[in-house]
């Protein structure tokens, strides 16, 4: 589904990613771990098409198609979803209206008519029930005054509504207590199927206790220096990142 080849990226002239290779197939969950400053968030931003980052070398392919030149919105239309570490607050736009707009813009890009109001409502109810989300929050302004947990649940709710092929969860566990973490993880597990894929970007392995990854990769200094299974995550949790740094140096 997602193939990354020799990806180099920089921000303001500073090289962050220095040759990342990754292959994610449909039905798989990949975790990308790494110490602070290793380039994890840069990787997720570059995949999602954030123009702040300059891709200087390499390729990103989605289902075999080169998406290097696509804008963020076009990548979203092709099924890429990024759950933000810090979702932005947008006073004055309700969660519902935001999601409606997002869904209908995607449909427009695919040459489809707007989803009917009743269909939209049905889908919203269905997904909210699936994720155990109180529908009251849907009429609130997007992320405005939301707690950390509410913001992340809202991200997962959007993911449920948009039904992406590839979901990237950027530090979704940061700032969450254990109950909120379980709710979010539960949501991701419910949305997971053999047609889609999930990439989890995280510093700690605790989210991985709830969402079992098929593969774990360690990013260090802009490169994936080690790949393995869930056991690698446990090892990192036990030993920290220093041994990886030494090994790769």
């Amino acid at each position, binding site marked *: 589904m997602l193939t990354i080849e020799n990806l180099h990226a920089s921000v303001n002239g500073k090289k962050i990613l220095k040759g990342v290779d990754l292959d994610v197939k449909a039905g798989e969950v990949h975790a990308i771990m790494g110490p602070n400053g290793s380039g994890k968030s840069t990787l997720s931003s570059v995949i*999602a*098409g*954030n*123009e*702040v980052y300059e891709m200087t070398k390499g390729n990103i392919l989605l289902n075999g198609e080169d998406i290097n030149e696509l*804008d*963020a*919105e076009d*990548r*979203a*239309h092709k099924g890429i*979803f*990024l759950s*933000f570490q810090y*979702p*932005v607050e*947008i*006073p*004055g*736009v*309700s969660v519902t*209206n*935001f999601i*409606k*707009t*997002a*869904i*209908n*813009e*995607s449909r427009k*890009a695919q040459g489809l008519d*707007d989803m009917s109001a009743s269909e939209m409502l049905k889908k919203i109810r269905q997904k909210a029930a699936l994720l155990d989300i109180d529908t009251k929050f849907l009429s609130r302004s997007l992320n405005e005054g939301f707690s950390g947990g509410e913001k992340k649940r809202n991200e997962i709710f*959007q993911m449920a509504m*948009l039904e992406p092929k590839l979901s990237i969860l950027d530090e979704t566990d940061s700032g969450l207590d254990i109950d909120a973490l379980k709710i979010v993880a539960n949501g991701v597990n419910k949305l997971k199927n053999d047609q889609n894929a999930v990439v989890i970007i995280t510093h700690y392995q605790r989210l991985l206790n709830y969402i079992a990854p098929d593969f774990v990769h360690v990013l260090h200094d802009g490169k994936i220096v080690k790949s393995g299974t869930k056991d690698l995550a446990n090892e990192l949790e036990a030993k920290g990142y220093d041994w990886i740094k030494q090994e790769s140096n």
Partner: protein
Amino acid sequence: MELKEKLLDSHLAFEQQSEVNDIIQNYRSNALRIFEKKGFPTKKNEEWKFTSLVSLINKNYALFPKTDSGIEFKHVEPFFLHDIDTYKVVFIDGIYSPFLSETTHDGLDVCLLSAALNKNKYKSIIDKYFNKIASKEESLTALNTAYAREGAYIYIPKNKVSEKPVEIIHFSTGEQNAIWLQPRNLIVVEQNAQVQIIERHQSLTHHDVVTNSVTEIYAHKDSLVDYYKIQNDLDSASLIDNTYINQEQNSHVSVHTFSFGGKLVRNNLNYFHKGQNILSTLKGLTILKGKQHVDHNTLVNHSMPNCDSHQDYKGIYSEQSKGVFNGKIYVNKIAQKTNAFQQSNNILIDDKATINSKPQLEIFADDVKCSHGCTIGQLDEDTLFYLRSRGIPRKEAKALLTYAFANNILQSVQINVLKKRINSQIAEKLGVNLGFNL
């Protein structure tokens, strides 16, 4: 002949056309003298530092345009609020159009100033209110007073709630090349009475139109006045709006100004407090593009204790448009427990758009809460990326954020059909159709 000379020279002919009693004639001649002395304000005047009238006054205008314009309702229907029933006072090129209007004398008066100035039954009201709070010193207000003869006259008696909003609409056809209009409105809302008013100036021609309007509003004890100014005119039309509001105890006067168009718009909005527990609300939403220029000049004169004023102006400026916000709050030394809030938030969409924002607080009381704030920003790229990552294209994302920015000004609009209308105008101005209401 220069415009000033022309305005001075034409006054005699005007007076012959429009006979009034001695008191009003006196007002007119005194006002003309002030205008003669002061002339048009220039940029040397601190209050006019950012707005130049030069481009307006270097033209030859018809001061008394011809009346027969043949405008039919179908030509102007879009400019009315048609989904609800309203009273209407409609003028074409400054002349009353009975045909487009719907006035009343049934329990309240919604009619013409020209009638009120001349008829005996209105004399006591006119004597008491006409030209009482309009500035005697400001030259453009004086110019209007010198030529005051027509406009809307609204009188809401004690305890009366006007069940229908009043629309005051000035159309200009400019059948002659360029016209200079000077409408004058008088609104008196007695104790515990309520009224909603929508005022609009609309040009139907690409000829130059300049409107120098004066409105006096008297809000008595416990009254409620909810006023909306819709400024969405053509690029050939300019407006100088001078509004003077006198508030008494427990009254609430709210003025929303929606400035979406016009060549040059200057709003002089002035509040005077004559009692306690008054609330004054001033809200503005400005969305400009091209070379449009809008200048909001507000004054809230807190001369009595325990009163609140709330000013919230938002502006969105594209291309080479220019905005000015000059908000003056004056708190008299006896006006303790004043609560005055002022906020001016602006977004510059393009590099060449400009906003000049100048809060002026003069506070002489020591137990008051006064705050003011001003922001000038661009749309945040991180926020845009968030929206785009959800599949909302850049243009729509910008529009959505701009919409959201404008939203809280719309929230306080009490007339639902008007709110909807403005909502769709915002979408139109931003060049997108999002297909939802906020």
